């Protein structure tokens, strides 16, 4: 885990200090920026491995920073937002951010998100078989099994699961999922998505009201949990 660089873009000195101490203790090299512009130039100069970005910055808004970063880099971006700003959160995720944390958050949660983001960024995409808990998805053979039993899925359900698997651990917004599975013209057909998620859950979750694989991010989207 050494030599991994994390850039924190946040104007709050207290939060930067908390993150600096916590992350440094984990062996990460911590870079800091107090504004969007500083963050953008440090990101370009230092090429960090993960960026932690606060949405409420004094100069450029965080969604804009995300967009500008995504013009040239795939560095994982984790958004920090306050509760109630779902719209900005979704905009940032749609702009290419990988994950989000709602303030206040615990260190454990943050470290888990960072690890997941790092894992995704080094993961080779042509891994054909994905396993989480009792669920096994063989992307090459289009085969889904739960505890060894084959699960019959409709093409759309399978499409959804495939997109979730390819982005395992990452929050996918409703709109993103609709675009990937149904196409851009279905970007507002949330009903379609929710119905298919419900059906998919009934097939792969042991208790659909307490799902362990497909996690709902209220008002934002869904995430496939890696167990």
């Amino acid at each position, binding site marked *: 885990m050494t030599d991994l660089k994390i850039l924190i873009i946040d104007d709050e000195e207290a939060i930067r200090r908390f993150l600096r101490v916590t992350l440094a203790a984990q062996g990460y090299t911590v870079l800091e920026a107090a504004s969007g512009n500083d963050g953008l130039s440090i990101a370009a100069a230092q090429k960090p491995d993960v960026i932690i970005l606060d949405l409420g910055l004094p100069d450029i808004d965080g969604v804009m920073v995300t967009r500008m970063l995504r013009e040239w880099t795939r560095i994982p971006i984790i958004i920090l937002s306050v509760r109630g700003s779902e719209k900005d959160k979704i905009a940032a995720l749609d702009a290419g951010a990988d994950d989000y944390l709602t303030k206040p958050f615990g260190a454990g949660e943050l470290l888990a998100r960072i690890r997941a983001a790092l894992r995704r960024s080094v993961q080779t995409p042509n891994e054909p078989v994905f396993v989480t808990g009792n669920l096994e998805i063989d992307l090459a053979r289009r085969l889904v099994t739960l505890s060894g039993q084959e699960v019959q899925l409709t093409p759309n359900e399978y499409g959804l699961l495939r997109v979730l698997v390819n982005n395992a651990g990452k929050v996918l917004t409703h709109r993103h999922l609709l675009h990937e599975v149904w196409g851009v013209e279905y970007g507002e057909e949330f009903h379609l998505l929710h119905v298919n998620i419900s059906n998919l859950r009934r097939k792969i979750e042991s208790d659909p009201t*307490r799902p362990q694989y497909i996690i709902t991010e209220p008002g934002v989207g869904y995430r496939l949990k890696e167990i």
Partner: protein
Amino acid sequence: MQYNAVRVESYMLKALSRSIKSVRLEIGDWRGYALGIVLVALATLLGRLLVNLFAPANIMMFYLIGVTVTAITFGLIPSITASLFSVLAFDFFLVPPYFTFDVEDTQYVVTFVALFVVGVVISYLTMRIRQQTEISIRREHETATLYSLSRSLTITTGLDKTLQTIIQGARETFGRDTVILLPDGAGGTLKPYVETSDSAMNEEELTVICQSLQHQTMSGQGTAVISETGATCVPLKTSRGSVGIMVLKGLKPPKPWNQEQMQLMEVFADLAALVIEHNQLVEEARNAQILEATEKLQAALLSSISHDLRTPLVSVIGVLSSLQEEGINLDDASKSKLIQVAREQAEYLNHIITNLLDVSRVEAGVVKISRQFSDVQDLVGAALEQMSSRIRGRPVTVEIPIELPFISVDFGLIVQTLVNVLDNALKYSPDDSPIDIKGWQIGNEVNIEIADRGIGIPPADISHVFDKFYRLQRPNNIPGTGLGLYICKGIIEAHGGNIAARNRPGGGTIISIILPISAPIEGRKVL
């Protein structure tokens, strides 16, 4: 009442001065004179026929009849003219020598004077009777108008309807478009009370309005100020100053006001002013009450909040300072226990602040509901997920049928409502007792019930659990702000739903949330 008495007196004075004025001015139209002349001619003709049978004094009566008829039909000046002609015709045709104005017998001069004087007196008296009748008719009309207005006013309540009744009354009485302009908000601009097609003002009317406002007097047609315009403006004056203006629009072709109408106009304006002033006073009183209630609430809020906020902070600061203090030697187990306490308290603090923010958002009406068709299972699942650390080992049962339709709600807000309800259920029930969640459909609504096996709610308090700052009095050691269920109520009601509490048979509480399903999304279906 005194004011009314003064009004009546001034009205009578004006009526009197009008009658004197009309003595001088009522020239009448040409037909009056024509009638006079014709009647005089008829009397002369009749006189000539009967001149040998009747005494001249009796023949004179024919003329007096003619004068009286003229007076009754056309008024004073034509009938005086007729009297004059009568004297001349009588002299010329009926007093010997005939067909000359010469008079044989000088005693006829007395007859002439008598004929003329009697003619004038008859004319004057007839005119007075005519005028009295006219005044009575106008009075009766005025009384009838005011009576019907006051009758409609007594059965209307509220500024809106009352003003509309007055406007309607004015419209019917004066036969003109009537607009009442009132100040609009703080800007000081005047706006028509009821916006209609005819409430727009033209340049001329605006000039009159300005004049009227500036001088606080009646202006426009029929007044001394800009009388050449068609419209008339009456300021609505109260003891506390002007509250607006009443505009009676001009007619095409222009039609002059009579005195009675001018009087009535003022009565209408006074009524409107009174109604508006009354309404202002009522509103001020109500605002004062609301302000007082709000202040009390703020005070309660402040004391409750400052206590609730400080309590967790006391433990957080305490824990942190003992960890930092060099003299205190703590083993690892104690340290971790202390840290756990601090963390729980900090999280509780976060919970309070979240609730406070939500309350202000719900109350300010800034909570925007972005509806999405949501799976009730998913809603409950998301709420349970958020509460997972609190639920830990608790037995939780969820019974939601697969066929339960999706409901059109704001996902985040409903999850938050469920979290708040779950929070209460967990707080007010023993650590190992079950939480039961059920969902089912009733007609066009979905009912979600969350039941615990806790302490329940005293029957007297059932209706208050959703009140702001309401807290169950019995368990004193349970922390809370009394805001959670209040927020839930705000959110559910904003969705057009309903939330209620009841005691559970066998002990515990049931919170029931009813939400409308609302119409399904139309459009493409690719399943």
